[in-house]
């Protein structure tokens, strides 16, 4: 026994020495260097995969679009808009006209990026006969009254005053393409990498754009390969077939965090995890019952079990640490006694509530099951119902009263506009308050910074107190890479620096 133990300890010592010995020269601490091809594995969608950046929908499409194209603005680490192709933006006094100065940038075919290209790109997205994702964000642009002042200046006319117009410029899929571009078999953009080849469902090869306006990328080549199964992405990384594996599970991260074959990169605050209660129908039209649910959730336990610890607890508010986030509202804790009291007060004792969920997003079914367990003994019974994953989001927008919810990063203003206003397209909680809509209107139509922050705070206060979203946690976005890959950012998923490869190098 003691012999074995000594032998084991000796072996461990040896391993540590070996690791320390070979870790240094190839480690990510090495200075950035140029050259090489990085292969990045993403989940794909076969038939759905396209290179048209305006049609981008999947993560792999977003990452590829970002490598080949630019938007006027994109989201920074705090999910606030940062200038990209736009060098600067200046609104007029009533926030209805925005003058945008373009950077001196070139498309891959050598043509300069001009104001006409910007207007043509937006006109394509806003085409009434088409359904591009960025359309709703850009819909407030009054295109006929917008104009190119000169080659590098665009003046946008808006249909209403809007202080957060740069958010629209950073909208998902609002990329600038050359005027008249319709065929994206060989896409031409202004991005850090230019197109080489595409095999749908298999791979896309890109090469360094030496003339990129922000400086040429460090990598010579960037190849996106498709592996739909998370285990396959992990195995390909471990087997040296790729250097970067996107979207790994917390379980994989946990088992490889201490190993030397894979470096784990976590992007905090990337995906909010929630349950959505509908306010326009029983039983959650009752404010007490909504509060009871808020108090039933044991958030640390949900984060520990469902996210395997790769996340942070939520406070029923979207966008933790993002611009305008009301971080001073006290964190809600589980309070079973108060929840029981509120359930009795609402006359809901013995009630069975169906919680709709599906595998449309990782961890949703697990979270629903854990939450149903946490509600035991409260007087309210939560029954988990698993639905079809492919139509889940459309189904739960209309049906049921309680459902699993998850969302990637977006500005808090966008979250409110898309989900919490009267007539918002994806108002899953059916939150409908004229006084709330008025606060939003005030926030986006004033140029007074103080008044705007006060309005955002007030909106979040009322949502925290009696809203329909029980936002229990924020999942880290997990990426695995070879230990010699440097320059991987941990910005939230969907922001500029996430899945961005022009700053990445191979050590």
């Amino acid at each position: 026994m003691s012999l074995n133990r000594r032998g084991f300890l000796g072996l461990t010592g040896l391993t540590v020495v070996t690791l320390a010995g070979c870790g240094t020269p190839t480690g990510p601490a090495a200075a950035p260097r140029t050259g090489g091809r990085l292969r990045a594995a993403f989940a794909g969608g076969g038939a759905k995969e396209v290179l048209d950046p305006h049609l981008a929908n999947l993560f792999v499409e977003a990452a590829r679009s970002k490598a080949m194209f630019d938007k006027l603005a994109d989201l920074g680490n705090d999910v606030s808009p940062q200038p990209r192709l736009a060098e600067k933006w200046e609104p007029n006094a009533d926030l209805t006209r925005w003058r945008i100065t373009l950077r001196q940038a070139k498309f891959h075919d050598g043509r300069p990026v001009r104001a006409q290209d910007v207007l043509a790109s937006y006109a394509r997205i806003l085409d009434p006969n088409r359904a591009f994702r960025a359309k709703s964000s850009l819909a407030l642009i009054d295109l006929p009254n917008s104009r190119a002042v000169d080659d590098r200046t665009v003046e946008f006319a808006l249909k209403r005053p809007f202080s957060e117009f740069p958010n629209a410029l950073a909208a998902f899929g609002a990329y600038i393409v050359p005027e008249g571009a319709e065929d994206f078999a060989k896409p031409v953009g202004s991005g850090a990498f230019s197109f080489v080849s595409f095999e749908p469902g298999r791979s896309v090869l890109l090469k360094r754009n030496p003339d990129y306006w922000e400086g040429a990328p460090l990598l010579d080549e960037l190849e996106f390969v498709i592996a739909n199964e998370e285990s396959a992405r992990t195995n390909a990384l471990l087997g040296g077939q790729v250097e970067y594996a996107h979207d790994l599970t917390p379980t994989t991260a946990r088992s490889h965090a201490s190993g030397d074959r894979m470096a784990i990169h976590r992007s905090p605050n990337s995906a909010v995890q929630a349950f959505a209660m509908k306010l326009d129908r029983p039983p959650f039209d009752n404010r007490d019952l909504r509060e009871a649910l808020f108090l039933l959730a044991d958030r640390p336990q949900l984060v520990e079990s469902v996210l395997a610890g790769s996340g942070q607890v939520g406070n029923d508010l979207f966008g933790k640490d993002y611009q305008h986030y009301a971080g001073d509202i006290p964190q809600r804790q589980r309070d079973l006694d108060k929840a029981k009291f509120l359930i009795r007060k609402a006359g809901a004792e013995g009630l069975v509530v169906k919680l709709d969920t599906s595998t449309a997003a990782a961890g949703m079914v697990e979270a629903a099951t854990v939450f149903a367990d946490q509600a035991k003994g409260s007087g309210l019974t939560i029954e988990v119902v698993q639905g079809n994953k492919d139509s889940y989001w459309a189904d739960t927008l209309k049906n049921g009263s309680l459902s699993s919810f998850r969302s990637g990063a977006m500005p808090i203003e966008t979250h409110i506009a898309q989900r919490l206003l009267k007539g918002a397209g994806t108002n899953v909680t059916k939150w409908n308050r004229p006084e709330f809509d008025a606060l939003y209107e005030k926030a986006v139509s004033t140029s007074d910074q103080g008044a705007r922050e006060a309005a955002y705070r007030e909106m979040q206060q009322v949502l925290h107190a009696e809203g329909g979203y029980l936002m229990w946690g924020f999942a880290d976005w997990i990426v695995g890479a070879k230990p010699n890959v440097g320059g991987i950012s941990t910005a939230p998923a969907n922001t500029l620096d996430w899945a961005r490869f022009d700053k990445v190098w191979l050590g």
Partner: protein
Amino acid sequence: MSLASYTARRIALGLVQVLAVVTLVFLLVQALPGDAAVALAGDNPDPARIAQIRAAMGLDRPAPERFVEWLVGLPRLDFGVSLVSGRPVADFLSGGIGPTLVLAALTLVLLVPISVLVGVLAALREGSLLDRALTSISVALHSIPEFALAVVLIAVFGVQLAWLPPTAVGADLFAQPAVLVLPLVVLLARPICSISRLVRAGMVDALASDYVRHARRLGIGETRVRFAHALPNALAPAVQQVARTTDWLLGGVIVVEAVFVIPGLGTVLVDAVAARDLPVIQGLAVVFAVTTVAVNLLADLVAFRLAPRAEVVA
């Protein structure tokens, strides 16, 4: 009835079967919750946007009308256009059929000789240590599902020992044949067992049959008796099983494709169903139905040549 008119009748029947399969698949996809517009809208299911996508895809026209339009193109081998990407369905089929054919062909090339050899060896040494060893290994291998075997092989030979590439991600199957080794082992494991068992049983029966005893009494050499007289009869039941295996392989073995990242027909099918991309699903249904009909017809003809029976010709 001659062999030619028998074949013609089977082909006519096959066409009816293909049509029935395609119609059934169309109805089944219609019965799934959500359509291509809902699937594409995903977590941004704004009803106004879904309606726009639906109009852009032409999904606002009645389903039977779209189906008939698609059927009319079929005789010209026009499979239509993918709803989601706008690319021709034929591109999806030709893209997926390559990897699936490579895997199926290599599997069959290895499968038939190995399983016949194993079956014959076991039958000739019936009851011996070799027979019992082969039987035990076959039964054990046959009881492991593909995904379990795949996961173990990848963990051991792909990741731990690093002898073979763990997946075929981004690889050209011809340029890097090493990526095919593990998938082939997984695909071969169960069919080798089932087919060698059938060959063994057929061979044992044949060797004990009257005509073999008669051939031996006539003084025909033992080798000739075994391989020219007993073996062809022993193979007839195995041919049907090879046909079923071929059909299974040509359908794209989804589990193997997913685990090893081989973008074959199975992957195309999974993606198309998730996207509710009806023209692509229908195109695949045609391919699968045609291969099933063709492979089974071929198997019946081969079985007939190996062991002519009165009822086929009658």
